């Protein structure tokens, strides 16, 4: 199954490399791009899907990207490609009885994950809902801007990529540029995505965002600690989304995601769903969790609950 998230999921045919070399020769003759363009442009053009790269090729790709980003952002940027930690499945908890709609999570995410400031891209959308209607997405408002939150009669529900167990987005990608990894995080290979936006149409949670324009990321605000599948700066014309701060969590020990850390009221919880001692299992056991749009059978790993 292509979505099982293994590095070598696809039958890679050695003949493809030969074919690629042949094509490279032909295209080289066609001067596409310009013949005196730096070698990195050629390498970037012919780069294979992340899952098909051999360890040496991956090292080369990461080195090339680090050089490119360091030059562009005038600081030492690292691009890692930490694989999933074995035996874990990330889960997220969001306490609706606590969220006050302050949006600090939105902006912490922007800073941590190098999102474009202009045009503005937010991976987290906080919805203001009416207490009388409950969770009714047709009635949601995301542009609320009162002097103080929470407003009377309203409650707040942040939405971001739900890291579904049955992601509808990964099955529709025509080039397999997006897939679910073994630790449950759905990722995008920004160098493979062709920008057809079919995954955006397929996502029931509005979690995917597109680079309609070249990203505007001020070098001073750039977070230089990046992951290939996560928060490295994205090129134009590709899709991006929340990756559970893959650059933070895939370490031992791993940090919490930026949104969990910044939440001033402690509404956000994160951990390993398979750990019987962890917060996530406690929440599932003791609080009543629910998921969004359960009728779509996506099985998100983003659990909403009411702690009180």
């Amino acid at each position, binding site marked *: 199954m292509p979505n099982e998230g293994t590095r070598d999921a696809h039958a890679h045919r050695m003949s493809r490399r030969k074919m690629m070399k042949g094509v490279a020769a032909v295209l080289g003759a066609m001067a596409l791009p310009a013949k005196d363009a730096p070698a990195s442009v050629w390498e970037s053009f012919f780069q294979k899907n992340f899952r098909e790269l051999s360890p040496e090729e991956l090292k080369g790709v990461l080195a090339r990207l680090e050089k490119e980003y360091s030059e562009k952002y005038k600081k030492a940027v690292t691009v890692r490609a930490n694989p999933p930690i074995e035996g874990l499945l990330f889960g997220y908890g969001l306490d609706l009885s606590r969220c006050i709609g302050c949006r600090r999570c939105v902006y912490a995410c922007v800073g941590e994950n190098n999102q474009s400031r202009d045009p503005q891209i937010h991976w987290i959308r906080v919805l203001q809902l009416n207490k009388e209607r409950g969770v009714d997405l047709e009635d949601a408002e995301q542009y609320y801007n009162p002097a103080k939150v929470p407003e009377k009669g309203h409650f707040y529900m942040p939405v971001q990529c739900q890291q579904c167990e049955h992601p509808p987005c990964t099955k529709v990608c025509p080039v397999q540029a997006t897939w679910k990894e073994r630790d449950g995080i759905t990722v995008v290979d920004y160098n493979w995505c062709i920008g057809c936006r079919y995954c955006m149409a397929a996502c029931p949670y509005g979690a995917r965002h597109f680079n*309609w324009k070249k990203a505007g990321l001020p070098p001073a605000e750039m977070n230089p600690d990046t992951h290939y599948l996560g928060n490295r700066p994205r090129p134009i014309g590709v899709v991006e989304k929340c990756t559970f701060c893959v650059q933070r969590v895939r370490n031992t020990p791993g940090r919490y995601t930026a949104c969990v850390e910044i939440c001033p009221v402690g509404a956000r919880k994160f951990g390993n769903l398979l750990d019987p001692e962890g917060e996530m299992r406690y929440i599932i056991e003791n609080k009543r969790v629910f998921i969004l749009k359960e009728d779509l059978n996506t099985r998100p790993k983003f659990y909403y609950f009411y702690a009180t």
Partner: protein
Amino acid sequence: MTKIWEFFKGTLVLVSKGSRAYYAWMVSLLALMAVGVAAYAYQLQNGLIVTAMRDEVSWGFYISNFTFLVGVAAAAVLLVIPAYVYKWKPIKEIAVLGEMLAVSAMVMCLLFVTVDIGRPDRFWHLIPMFGILNFPQSMLAWDVVVLNAYLCLNLVIAVYICYKHYIREEPNPNFFNPMILLSIPAAVSIHTVTAFLYNGLAARPFWNASILAPRFLASAFCSGPAFMIILFQVIRKYTRIEIKNEAIFKVAELIAYSMFINLFLLGAEVFKEFYSNTIHLAPMQYLFFGLKGHSNLVPYIWTAMIFNVSAFFLFLIPQTRENYVTLNIGCVLIFIGVYIEKGMGLVIPGLVPDALGEIYEYAPTGTEILLALGIWATGLFVYTLLLRVAVPILTGEFHVGKDGVKPVIHDMEFIRRADHLAEQSYRD
């Protein structure tokens, strides 16, 4: 080989010469194509931000045109079935014109998809063996396969028919018949796969309806043949090709039945949404009546509804169907009506309100409209080129000479009044 090469050279001569009207037509198309190229260059330089598409409505005018044109391409089958399955002579001679329309429509479809994707430089990622084509999981991958297959199939069929006619041989049935029969399910498949592309998305309740694929086919068999009817009259008037009235009227009759099915299925959808009155009513409400003060599409969809229903009656009633004035009005109405209904009227409500209830009103920008015009001009240009070769072949004015190698071109004018032609005889 030399024969084919000479044939090809002959076609080049043909397309480069013609009447003043021909030149005027081709030059204006080329001008529009140049405008389209400029618009695309602007879009490539600045990114898709120059369109009105945003995260909330991530598909727009380009994909609307694509969806409509896939339907037009599928319409060739409406000519192929009577011509080759029922061997009905009045249509048999002109079925190739429908296949050429399919080729032009496919070219336009592929162009619309190409201008819509964010990274056209990564197009090779779609090619199996070089890249990764997510077949069979992704319906877009299926679409890539069937659209290209259909394009090749129709191109091969059209070129084969024309070439055989040119060298004055009968088509080899062992080669030809399987291909022509294959083109029937191929035509159904392109529209079914395109419908499944939308249909399979549970996230979009407006599209996630089983009825979508039948609706697509029904509307496809309205729009393409309507264009063909007008085209046949033009060809009949300005060239020596004979097209019988009964052929045209039969096509019109088939359109009537297709439009009935289309309207019935639409009515079924409307009933289900409005009567059940769940939250999934929101997109249809937005389309027909507006939602929370947003009502951009309302005048367009009602225009489309009025056009479609009027056209249906014009095609249904024999008196209006067989009167060329009302028939042509009906064709125009149906073409525009289906363009709206299967274009923006399908794509935009699928994405509005978005997955979290937000309403973003999309209306195409100037860049999108100019680029779309450029692509339509390209399609018409391709079709004109194909006609410029096919028509003289069918009338016998472009054929292989006595030596069996060099072509003979009798007629250097293209588009000429039929009454002039009767005075001359070109058969040798």
